[in-house]
């Protein structure tokens, strides 16, 4: 049986529609207009024990709402969900001892005290046996390289160090299910990488089930075999990361390292859309099915030192995907930017 089962989950909010201006504000004191917002509009999902699943989607797509529903912070409007056989929003203490939620923008440690003290508190709240507590803390703080920081007040730690402490706090009671909401938000590349490495290692070792939302494709590519895309409160895609690339983009990027004799770079535009020319390198966008044919033609007519064929960058693919599923998100294309720049120029001329 799946460890997480979600059936037709719906969460709608009533949002007060405040209009602009003082008169409207005064009117709002008496009569308020509300708008129904469907944060989650019917999601079905099953997750097996030991899976590491990424939730992707534009801002406001319903990812965080789904995690909140699964951790029992909010009640759904309709539908059911079971995690390890518990209904999350019943908030059974037995359930609460077996999962953890980490939110990248929320702090659960005591600000003025060393993290060690907050951990002690967790030990008591979650009733972790002393030996297990000591062993887990030693293991995790060693992996995250924070042992020397345990005795420092949390307020003196950097953002990255604090995030590591948050993660430690969440894992002390060895949860079977972990929900991570943007765990690497605002962190530098090194800290992001550290946390990725840690999560990967920890998840493989303990075989726990993790649901992650993130805007960093590197997180997702490094960690999750399975990707779920949510937009407008609905499931738009469920499968592998490579699958998104196959499904979404119809082209590949062909990068050519030219010989010095090749100076007529404008000729390359007949093989495909020229993405960039930085001699001696030229990058072309070529339709997927034409790649082999195009390469043959190029190699016949030009002197080429090196060729690489790649999928477009993941960020681009995902942005493409988002704009496909949600027409309100239109990708800013190069033409748009050029057009607006040109517009600005004419204005300054005038």
């Amino acid at each position, binding site marked *: 049986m799946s460890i997480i089962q979600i059936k037709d989950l719906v969460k709608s909010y009533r949002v007060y529609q405040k209009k602009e201006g003082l008169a409207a504000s005064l009117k709002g004191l008496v009569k308020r207009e509300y708008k129904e917002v469907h944060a989650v509009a019917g999601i079905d999902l099953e997750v097996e024990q030991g899976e590491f699943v990424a939730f992707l989607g534009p801002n406001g797509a319903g990812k965080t709402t789904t995690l909140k529903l699964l951790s*029992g912070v909010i009640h759904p409007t309709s539908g059911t969900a079971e995690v390890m056989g518990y209904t999350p*929003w019943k908030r059974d203490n037995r359930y609460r001892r077996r999962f953890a939620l980490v939110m990248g923008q929320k702090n659960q440690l005591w600000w003025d005290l060393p993290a060690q*003290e907050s951990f*002690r508190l967790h030990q008591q709240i979650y009733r972790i046996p002393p030996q297990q507590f000591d062993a887990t803390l030693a293991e995790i703080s060693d992996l995250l390289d924070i042992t020397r920081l345990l005795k420092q007040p949390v307020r003196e730690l950097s953002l990255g160090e604090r995030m590591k402490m948050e993660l430690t706090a969440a894992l002390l009671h060895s949860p079977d299910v972990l929900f991570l909401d943007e765990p690497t938000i605002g962190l530098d590349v090194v800290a992001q990488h550290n946390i990725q490495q840690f999560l990967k290692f920890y998840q493989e070792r303990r075989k726990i089930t993790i649901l992650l939302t993130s805007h960093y494709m590197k997180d997702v590519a490094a960690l999750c075999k399975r990707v779920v895309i949510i937009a407008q409160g609905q499931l738009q895609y469920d499968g592998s990361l490579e699958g998104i690339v196959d499904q979404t983009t119809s082209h590949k990027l062909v990068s050519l390292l030219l010989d010095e004799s090749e100076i007529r770079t404008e000729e390359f535009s007949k093989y495909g859309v020229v993405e960039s020319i930085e001699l001696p390198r030229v990058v072309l966008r070529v339709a997927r099915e034409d790649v082999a044919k195009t390469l043959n033609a190029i190699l016949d007519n030009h002197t080429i030192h090196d060729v690489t064929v790649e999928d477009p960058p993941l960020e681009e693919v995902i942005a493409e995907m988002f704009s496909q599923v949600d027409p309100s998100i239109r990708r800013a294309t190069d033409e748009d930017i050029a057009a607006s720049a040109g517009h600005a120029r004419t204005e300054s001329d005038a």
Partner: protein
Amino acid sequence: MTAHVVKWWTILRISLEERFVYRGDFALGTLMRFLPIITQIFLWTAVFAAVEQASSPAGSQASSQATEMAAEQAAAGGATTVAGYSLSAMIAYYLLTMMSRAFSSMPGLASGIALQVRNGEIKKFLIQPVDMIGFLLLTRMAHKLAYYTIAILPFAFVFYLCRGYFELGWPDMQRMVVYLCSLLLAFVLGFFLEASIGLISFWFLEVSSLLFVYNLLTFFLSGHMFPLDLLPDFAQQVVTYLPLHYLAYYPAAVFLEKIPANEMWIGLGVQAAWVLAFIGVSRVMLNRGLHRYSGFGG
């Protein structure tokens, strides 16, 4: 059971540590607490002087408005009293209410709850297996303990300086027990009263104006500002039916023997009943509030 004890003890210990982090704030806060005593002594000395002058035979009868404040000339001693309080008793009363408020005032409790509701920190009590009110009560106990284990020194010093105002001396054993019990109950009552007000934020988000009104009412109706015996009979009747006077007036009145020995246990019982009532109120509010909160999201 022992697991629970250890859990709550840990919460208490960690909050204690947190309190000792800010030493400067602590010292200044303690100092500022004692400044009003001086103004109170000046104020009541001036009031009594005016009353005495107005009611003395040499004084003009025309200025007898002041005597309407229920000033009486004690038949035998000749010492001026206001509503049964001599100047010394008045200042002793003030010192004792300061003591009561040291137990029953809960700075930042309601506004802290409101803040947690607004910024979503309250979520942690939905996710972790820990009871919010119990947690807050323990951290509050820790705050008080931390503060007064140190502040007991300046408190003792001030009371020692002002010992002359306590004309009746120490009350007898039984009265002392009732006094101490009512102080402890004042702490619990103050906590659950203000926690209930803080929990209103589940419905209104912003409770600062409500809290302002509550603090104002408490200042008057708890007897912190002046002894409730100064109020007209009717108002006194009403006030004794309210829970607020247990926060300051009642313990002080017990100590100063304003409450007859046979009535003071009853008063203590009523105070305990109020505590139970507000424990119930806050419990219901928390359950409803969390349900509402989780229904809306946040």
